[in-house]
C-alpha cells in the first residue's frame, strides 16, 4: 500500500473563519490522510512554500469572507513557477461577497487554477469519498 497522501488545509488571505477548515482537517485525518493544518489566515505564499517543503498532493483551501478572488490574484502563476502544477487544488466556502450562484463563480476559480470549486456548506465527507480519492487516484497519488 502506498503511503497516505499529504493534504494542506487552511483559510486564505485575511479570512478568520476557522471552524470549517478545522472540521475539514479533522475529517481528513480521520479518513487516513496526512494533514498539514495551517489554520486561518494563510497567505498564498505560505501555502506554496509549505507545499514545496512537504511535497503535498493537494491543498483544500477555505474562504468564507468573500474576498478570495482578491487574495488569490497571483496565486496560480506563483504555484506554477514553484513547479506545483501537478498538485490538486480545491476551494470551498462563501467565495464571493453577497448571495451568488455557484455555477457562475466556479469558472472564475477554475481560471485561478482550482480543480474543484465548492458551494457554501458542502459536506466534506462526501467530497472526500466522491471527489478527492478519485482525483488522487487519477493522478497516481493513491
Amino acid at each position: 500500500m502506498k503511503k497516505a497522501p499529504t493534504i494542506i488545509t487552511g483559510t486564505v488571505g485575511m479570512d478568520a473563519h476557522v471552524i470549517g477548515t478545522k472540521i475539514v482537517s479533522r475529517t481528513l485525518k480521520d479518513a487516513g490522510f496526512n494533514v498539514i493544518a495551517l489554520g486561518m489566515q494563510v497567505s498564498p505564499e505560505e501555502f506554496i512554500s509549505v507545499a514545496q517543503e512537504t511535497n503535498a498532493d493537494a491543498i483544500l483551501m477555505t474562504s468564507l469572507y468573500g474576498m478570495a478572488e482578491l487574495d488569490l490574484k497571483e496565486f496560480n502563476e506563483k504555484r506554477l513557477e514553484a513547479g506545483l502544477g501537478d498538485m490538486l487544488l480545491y476551494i470551498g466556502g462563501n467565495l464571493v461577497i453577497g448571495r451568488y450562484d455557484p455555477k457562475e463563480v466556479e469558472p472564475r476559480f477554475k481560471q485561478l487554477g482550482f480543480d474543484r470549486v465548492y458551494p457554501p456548506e458542502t459536506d466534506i465527507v462526501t467530497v472526500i469519498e466522491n471527489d478527492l480519492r478519485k482525483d488522487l487516484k487519477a493522478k497516481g497519488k493513491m
Partner: protein
Amino acid sequence: MKKLRVRNKKIDDDLLMKKRREELDKWPTGKEVDFDEAVAYQKSLPDSKIWWKVMTKLREEGRMSVFPRAGTPVLEKMIELCQGLRDSGVVLIPVTTDSYTRLCQYEKVEDILKECEKTGKPLLNGYPIINQGVKKTRKLVESIDAAFSPRGAGGEIAIASGMTTAEAGVGFLGFGSYVKNMTIQELVESSQNGMRVIGWYADRGVILCKDLHGWLPSAPFPLSINIVCMIIEAVTAAEQGQKALYPLVHCMGNMTQDLAWIKLAPRVIREYLDKFGYQDTMIIGTCPAQTPLFPVAMDMGGAFAYLCYASMVGALSKSNAVDLRSIDEGAGVPTKDTNTVSYRAAKWIFDVVREQQVEIDIKGIDTEEKVAETEVRAILDRILDLGDGDIVDGTVKAVESGVLDSPWSPNVNVKDQVLGVRDARGACRYLEFGNLPIPEEIKEFHRGKVAEREKLEGKKVDYHSTVKDLWSLSKGKIVGIPPYNQ
C-alpha cells in the same frame, strides 16, 4: 479578603495625546480629526444619535430596535443601505468595517475602494471607515436619524464622525475569534497600556457606549465562559472611563436557557462592577444576539423563523434591542432589500409583542440561571485567586492555563480543550470541560443531561455530535427526536 483591583498603568496626558496622534497618522484621513472640535461635534449631536440615550429611551418607552449588521464600501450605497434600515424601524445602526481595515491594511483598501467606486461593485466586505475619513463619514451620520456604532475598527475617526460607541477594556472578541498568534499578555497590554481615549471624552462630558461581547461561543456552548469574559470586559472598560455598557447575550436557541442568560448577564455584571467600585458605570439594557449558524440561502422560511424566534426572545425578555442578522446571513453580505424585509419581520414582533409588555415565566429558567451563575462565580473566583485579587493578572494566567477556554478558536495560544453539545431538549451542555474549574456537582448535571440525549438518540454523544449541532438551528432541528413517522 483580597483587595479586588484592575491592573492599569495610567499613562500621563502628554503621552496620551502623542499616542492618539500617532494612531491617527497611520493614514492621511487622520488629519481630519481635531480633538476639541470632535468633542464639540459630539456635544452638538441630538439625543437620537447618542447610542446610550437611544437605548435608554427604548427601554423607558417599552420598545425595541433591531441592532443589525451592515457595511458596504461606497458611501452613497452605504447611506442607502442605512436609510433602508432606518425605514424598517432600526434606530441603532452599525457600521461594519471590512476585513482589511480591521487589519490596518489601508493602502490595499485604497486601491480596492477606487475600484469599487469605478465599477460600482462592493469588492470589500464592509465600510472602510479609516480610508473614508471624517468628512465623508459625517455625511453618513448626518444623513440618517439614528445612532451609529463602528464595528471592528474606527477609533477616533469614528468618534469625530459622530458615532457614539467605542471600545475600551480587554476585548475577547478579537482575541478569541479574529487573530491567530496574539497572546493573552499581548491583548492585555495593548488594551490596557492603551490610550484611555474613552475616559478622555468622558471627562469632557461625552459618554461613548459599548456592547459587551465576551468570548464568542462560536458553537452551541454554555454561556458561562462568555459571561465571565463580559464581566472582565466591563470592569476593565469601566476602569478606562467607560460610563455606559450593555451585554450582548448570545442566544443559542433553547428558550429556557436564552431567557435565563438574558436575566443573569446584566445582574452579575452589575454586581461585579459595583464590587470593583464602578457604581457610576451604567448598564443601559440588554441585547440578545443571534449566534449559531444561519439557515442557508435557499431556506428562506427557516431564516425568517430563526430571526422571528430571536426577536420573540428579545421581546419577551423586554430587551431594548436584538442583534439580528438578515435572511441572507447564510449566503453573504445582505442587500438593502433583504435587510428591509428581514427587519420588517423583526419590527412586527417588536411592535406587536414587546409593546404588550408580556410578563413571562418559564419552568426551568431558575435552574438554568443557577447553573450558569454557579459556573460564572466558580471561574471568576479562580481568576481572582490566580491574580491575587487583580482581575487582569488573573485573566492572563487563566487563559494560559485553560481556566478560561472556549472551543473552535483560531488563536494558537488558546487551549481549545472544551466542547459543547445540545441535550435532549436542545439546551447547551459541556461535553468536554477541559481545565475549567467547574464544581463537580455541576459537571454531574451536564453529564446527566448529555446522557438523556444519548438515551433518546440511542447513540453516544461525541465530537461528531458537536459538529452536527453547529447546524441545529440552521436546519431547524434542535432536539434529538427522530423525524415524524420514522
